[in-house]
């Protein structure tokens, strides 16, 4: 084992630590590398923003991440490439099995995408952030530099500042795992309660994850390389450390479609249609949760009072989805459960009983124990909206001619794409059988394609009196338009990888 050291902010790209919320203008340039040597020269001195706290705060930022073909084009060899995860190497598209699992079928299928496939798969994404005043200058300068340095611009994904509200009208970005930057967390043993703190290694490579292990990543024996040391392999240098994987998906949102559908379902009653929307999402439009707040603290929630108001809750007291439907978007995306079933106490015998599920023999109606433990499936989201903002008043109006698409450039960071993004997307969000449900997938993100011949376009609204209501034929509200997996290297690794092309 090498030495265990603190998180090295100066070697990380800032997006791991900050959402750059104050830099409200942003765009994502999807680039192809045509001249690797020239591109590498630029990369070696690119003004990439680190995760250190700057005073005064920056007015502009640049983040860079690469696809597997991009790294290959830069001249990174198999010895290093094969150290990356299978999902990253395979990419988001190209494997029919992955597309099936991610729900990229029907209207979402990659052959309809506007970027991310074949010739439209970028080698690199340049994520450009700035204050509105600085934005166009910063973007134009960077773009000119890159285009003059062997990059070809495939696509510019613009963003819109919707002031913390996502296009459907819900306050967004209210829940995020608290990263254990100080490396204080002990992940061992079964956790009996939901916690919102996640090991650094869940999001940053080169640090232990929720299993207390180091996620696979490339390490090299090159002692002279200007790279961090690998903590888990003495004498090795860590190409992955301080890096992360970035998942990008461009999601068009049919805002008018959603509200028209809800309006129909509610018989034109505005309050009812908002209430139904809140049940689909699983939060109030203000971002507040549907279940009542807990009296006790949740590790990793707070001390910010807004965070407490929005996140000090679980679904433990609502096993039947009477308060928040089981299939609601936020419940699928973050079930807020623990390692052992609800009601397990810390006593050894009780734990043993629950580990062996012996409690189920006594209590046939014991809550279902289907949903996987949340702490192994978390994401840090860094998405940005795009397109025109459609106000509450405009939602039901006829679509004006030539109205551009509105949606979300979904961006998330994780250290293990298979266990984090892909698992959440397939086992929870897109699954037609989440938590014992049947015949529905995520009310917002679902592609509405039947699964094994069974429809998956319903939504169940349990009611406390007993008889639940099920709405049928929920239309598709979100269409995937593009996507890719990127590796966002640490800053030393960025220079090291760039050097591969020049060597």
């Amino acid at each position, binding site marked *: 084992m090498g030495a265990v050291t603190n998180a090295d902010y100066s070697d990380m790209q800032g997006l791991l630590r900050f959402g750059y919320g104050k830099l409200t203008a942003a765009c994502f340039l999807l680039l192809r590398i045509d001249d690797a040597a020239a591109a590498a020269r630029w990369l070696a001195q690119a003004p990439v923003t680190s995760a250190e706290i700057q005073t005064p705060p920056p007015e502009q930022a640049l983040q860079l991440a690469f696809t597997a073909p991009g790294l290959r084009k830069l001249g990174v060899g198999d010895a290093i490439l094969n150290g990356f995860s*299978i999902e990253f*190497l*395979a990419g988001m598209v190209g*494997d*029919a*099995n*992955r597309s*099936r*699992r991610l729900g990229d079928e029907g209207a979402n299928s990659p052959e309809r995408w506007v970027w991310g496939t074949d010739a439209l798969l970028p080698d690199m994404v340049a994520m450009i952030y700035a204050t509105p005043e600085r934005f166009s200058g910063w973007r134009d300068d960077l773009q000119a530099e890159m285009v003059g340095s062997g990059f070809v611009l495939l696509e510019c994904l613009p963003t819109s500042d919707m002031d913390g509200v996502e296009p459907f009208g819900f306050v967004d970005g209210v829940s995020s795992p608290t990263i254990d930057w100080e490396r204080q967390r002990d992940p061992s043993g079964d956790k009996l309660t939901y916690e919102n703190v996640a090991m650094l290694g869940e999001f940053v490579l080169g640090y232990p*994850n929720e*299993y207390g*292990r180091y*996620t*696979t990543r490339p390490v090299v024996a090159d002692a002279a390389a200007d790279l961090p040391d690998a903590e888990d392999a003495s004498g090795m240098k860590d190409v992955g450390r301080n890096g992360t994987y970035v998942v990008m998906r461009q999601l068009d949102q049919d805002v008018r479609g959603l509200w028209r559908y809800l309006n129909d379902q509610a018989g034109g009653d505005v309050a009812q249609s908002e209430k139904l929307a809140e049940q689909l999402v699983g939060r109030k439009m203000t971002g507040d949760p549907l279940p009542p707040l807990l009296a006790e603290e949740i590790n990793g929630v707070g001390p910010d009072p807004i965070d407490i108001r929005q996140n000090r809750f679980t679904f433990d007291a609502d096993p*039947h989805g009477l308060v928040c439907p089981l299939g609601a978007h936020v419940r699928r995306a973050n079930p807020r459960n623990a*390692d052992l*079933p609800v009601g397990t106490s810390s006593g050894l015998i009780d734990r043993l009983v*629950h*580990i*062996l*599920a012996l409690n*189920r023999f006594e209590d046939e*109606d014991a809550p*279902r*124990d*289907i949903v*996987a*433990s949340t702490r*192994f499936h978390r994401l840090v989201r860094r998405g940005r909206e795009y397109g025109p903002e459609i106000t509450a008043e405009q939602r039901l109006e006829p679509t004006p001619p030539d109205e551009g698409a509105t949606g979300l450039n979904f961006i998330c960071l994780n250290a*293990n794409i*298979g*266990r984090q993004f*892909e*698992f959440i997307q*397939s*086992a929870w969000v897109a*699954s*037609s*059988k989440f938590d*014992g*449900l*049947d015949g529905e997938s995520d009310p917002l993100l679902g592609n509405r394609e039947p*699964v*094994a*011949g*069974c429809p998956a376009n319903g939504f*169940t609204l*349990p009611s406390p*009196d*007993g*008889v*639940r*209501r*099920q709405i*049928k034929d929920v239309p598709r509200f979100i269409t995937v338009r593009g996507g890719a997996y990127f590796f966002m290297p640490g800053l030393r690794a960025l220079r090291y990888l760039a050097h591969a092309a020049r060597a």
Partner: protein
Amino acid sequence: MTPQSNLMIVAPLVASREGELRQLLATMNLEPGVANPENSLVRFGRLGTLHFARFVILEDGTRDDLKACGLPPADSTKSLALLCDFDGDDEVFYRELITNAEPGLRVLFSCCEPAPGPDLLAWLKDHNKRAQAAYVNWIGRTVLQVREESKLYAALQPRINVAGAAKPSQVWSDLRSYMRAEVAAGRLSLTPEASTPVGWSVKNFLHLVGIPLLGLLFLPLILLYLPIFLIQLRMHEKADPVIAPRPTSEHARALAELEDRIVTNQFSAYGNIKPGPFRRWTIAAVFLAIDYTARHIFKRGFLARVMTIQFARWVFLDNHTRAFFASNYDGSLESYMGDFINKVAWGLNVVFSNGLGYPRTDWLIVGGAKDELTFKDYLRRHQLPTQVWYNATPGITASDMERNAKVREGLEKSEMSDHELRQWIRLFG
């Protein structure tokens, strides 16, 4: 109650016929990973008691691992295996299988050595490998029952919506009348449960009490041996090699191509048991324990905390030097492996740590699968592509089956308390 049984026909493959066999197997599929129930070789769909079936070519891609123990690579002969999970007793099933598929079975197994002779039944029985341990999600739940109850649930679903704000008791009695009318009109059928075969009940009871009695009989010996066992175990655990390189991308692709076509998936894994008597006896004892708990304890919807496994079995092959594991589970492989690691790592460790190359365990239950990525690589590397896989009730998960059965049970009751009614009505969502 009709208990479930299984068979696994295994015969060595003639090397020169492998290509031909693979082509034949491919003709049995609608698409990779989904068998055509009406394929011309084995019309699985005609076998009304068959839950799951698979043809899998047993091929040890990890045979060189034995070199880590200073042994020559394992035998490289490949075999063809046919696995079936079905209702009722095997004599009846064998006969039905032969009646429906004799020519096709002969074509397929003619690629094996020895090929079937004039008496196919005798040949099949001869080549059947008994499972050391078998798990059935719900002992007694037949294919017919699953199909009928699924149809019932589908018929009731839209009527629940119509019911709207009605009282649970009203909904219950309305649906009951509706069900009776549909059954009377022949649109729904709800076959009553068959009586439990007496022979099976007797054997099952003898097993239930016999194994603990034997255990009691040998208890003094077991207690005497236990400290020695623990010392041996620790010595082995400290010395056993871990061999779990990431599977090649070709292997991973070949597996993935077959997966996630429907909600349920198949899993076939094959590998060497660690050489030497210690591990061989340990795994035999573990199989005995699993088989006992699966028969008598975990027989109603869950195997410890895992509720997504429909059928699973463990089989010794190749003169007890290798083990084969097959399962049919709901969800994706990533979620299956996640359950293994997070819910039942101890259970996985107890079995698979006797497999060559498994991530290191401590005291048989600690560690092992908790080494997440090594464990996933180990499992994936030992997994075999299942060339043909048949599922009689696609799209219906174990959880759906349990719900459908409870819905029916409720409707067949003559009265229900308010509490029961509330529980029952919740089955609909």
